């Protein structure tokens, strides 16, 4: 069974991928290999199908998310984007992330959902622009060092987005 997530779905290992093709290929693989197709199969077939379906789910989740896809592309080149030794960040970005965190904390304290929604929109714009950068760095310039730094920025941005969503969820319930 193929270990490379891109190859599993018959895709080339690039950052910019066609998400519709990815979705169709994922569905195609699951249509054939899902455990539902082997309910009356042998134990070995069930185990095999379980492994393929699990890998396909993991691969789909990874490739669907721009941040995870970028980190995965780097891992194929033996680069760990989130290694503990790999924490360098430009000072400008560090300043901005501190500001985002402060806004998040203030909004949480004030219970201000509107403020959180505004921050969320800002973070989404930031994430979009990082994704555009990643497309160029991976697919055109093939600059892995810069790609690694931008990937870390995107992972960080996604983390803030997740925390904002969580804060909104807690305030709404």
């Amino acid at each position, binding site marked *: 069974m193929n270990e490379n997530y891109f190859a599993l779905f018959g895709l080339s290992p690039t950052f910019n991928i066609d998400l519709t093709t990815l979705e169709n290929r994922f569905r195609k693989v699951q249509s054939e290999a899902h455990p539902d197709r082997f309910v009356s199969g*042998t134990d*070995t077939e069930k185990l095999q199908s379980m492994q393929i379906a699990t890998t396909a*789910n993991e691969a789909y*989740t990874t490739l669907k998310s721009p941040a995870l896809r970028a980190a995965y592309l780097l891992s194929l080149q033996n680069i760990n984007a989130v290694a503990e030794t790999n924490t360098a960040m430009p000072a400008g970005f560090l300043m901005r992330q501190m500001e985002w965190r402060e806004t998040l904390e203030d909004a949480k304290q004030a219970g201000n959902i509107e403020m959180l929604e505004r921050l969320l929109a800002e973070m989404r714009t930031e994430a979009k622009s990082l994704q555009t950068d990643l497309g160029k760095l991976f697919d055109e310039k093939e600059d892995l060092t810069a790609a690694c730094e931008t990937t870390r920025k995107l992972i960080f941005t996604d983390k803030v987005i997740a925390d904002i969503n969580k804060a909104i969820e807690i305030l709404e319930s």
Partner: protein
Amino acid sequence: MALLQISEPGQSAAPHQHKLAVGIDLGTTNSLVATVRSGVSNVLLDAHGHALLPSVVRYLPDGNIDVGYDAQAAQSIDPQNTIVSVKRFMGRGLKDIDVSNQPYHFVDQSNMLQVETRAGIKSPVEVSAEILKALKTRAENTLGGELVGAVITVPAYFDDAQRQATKDAARLAGLNVLRLLNEPTAAAVAYGLDNASEGIYVIYDLGGGTFDVSILKLSKGVFEVLATNGDSALGGDDFDRRIFCWILEHSKCKPVNAQDTRTLLTKAREAKEWLTDHANAQITSILSTGEVINLSLTTQQFNELTQTLVAKTLAPIKKALRDAQLCVDDIDGVVMVGGATRMPQIRLAVADFFKQTPLTNLDPDKVVALGAAIQANTLAGNKSDKDLLLLDVIPLSLGLETMGGLVEKIIPRNSTLPIARAQEFTTFKDGQTAMSIHVLQGERELVTDCRSLAQFELRGIPPLVAGAARIRVTFTVDADGLLSVSARETISNVEANITVKPSYGLSEQQILDMLKNSFGAAETDKQARALAEAKVDATGLLTAIQTALDQDGSLLSSKEKQAIKAKMNALRGLLDAGSGDAIHTATEQLNTATESFAAKRLDVIVSRALAGKNIDAVDL
């Protein structure tokens, strides 16, 4: 038109016969069984023409057990021995349940809530098994044969303990569970296939005791759940209880006894149902104390009493939308499921929230069972085309206890199933040979706020200096949403010994004991049962391998094929005369002999799926 298959005279056509498979909606208030006949999903009726089987079990003084309408009719006169809404107790401990307003004598035994009846202490699993047995009998009588298996539905928001309890109940009832299927997903199948729908749909499922919301993407027969949320302790029952409390308040009654509680809860339910298409309901009753109750409840009063309950269903919808990264405008349709969605205030609130009229054209009581039957028919292999595929998710995150009583998430909620995640652990002390791992389910950060699923003990770790051992623990959640755990020490490659202590539910031994009790304890019975089970397993395997050989036999050399066929013949020879043990051993041998064949087949199946599309890339 497909050609009819006619077998050689004297040879069995068994593998191609229509297999009897059913879908079962095991509901809090009512249960149903459905099957697909001539391509159409139908609910099966009892001898009196009823589709619904009230989920009520009564243990009678003469030792018999009533299930359904008779039991329901007796609930007021024999409340302690008549179990209603048992689904609320599945996989639960005493501390999880609000025991006020419940007429039962509860016992907390083996970490699972149980009920004391005149027939002894009964676990919710045993009570549910009685309901399932009644439905199994109904199906077998109607269809005229033994069932191959059943798809049983569970609320999407059921956790691992509740799912396991449901599967155990099916096992006690002698049912082969083809799959546990989430209720909203089942409803989506019935609805989507009926209406050939495409797009993003919300299923709003308010049953007797549970609330689920699922957001699905429907496309060319694939039903992909994007997010699910809910409340496994909110349903129509709670609306009854609000009316019940209102009756007590307005009639200035003293706290009432078990019998009167049951009577008034029934009156409350009738008033709720009446208000669906009337402006006010008259509630009259004479209590055992002689007190007379005569009250009038208007629609407006009922709406005010229950508005917090209605609002409680909107919070999970918002969470599910957020998880799916969707907003109200992205939703193509909202399907209403569950008897409680007949209440006008629910329909209005949902219409208001989604800015569109919810779809109610399928009977909200039947749609889950109808969908489950369609899935059962596909899983049993009756449908040759492979159009229908359900991709469901895990409703609640799985995590592990770390230092300081905190939970570290291993598998996030709404991950598509099946899923496996591995986590590495190391030892804290020199020479440490065991460690304990605590698995939890829930979204909160503190261990005490999450549901404890199991405590695992890893033993047999080679004694090394602290931090040197690497123990890789793999958590797997299968397509039924059930968790299993395996562990391996990766430095020495020792398979660690795992002791699973489920925090709730029945142990394997308890289930075996119950099975033994229900089938009679005689040694010959046990042997006969073991032989019957071995034969079923063997026949199933022989059929599966024959199918595999017919489809992909070309993957094998003639020598390999002969080796498998020899093992198959050996097993066939034992079927008529062999002992249970001999058949079991031969089955295992056949299984082992086909391992590499299965691996080759699956590889080919996946490549074939992508064939014609960039096949070179697949072979990278």
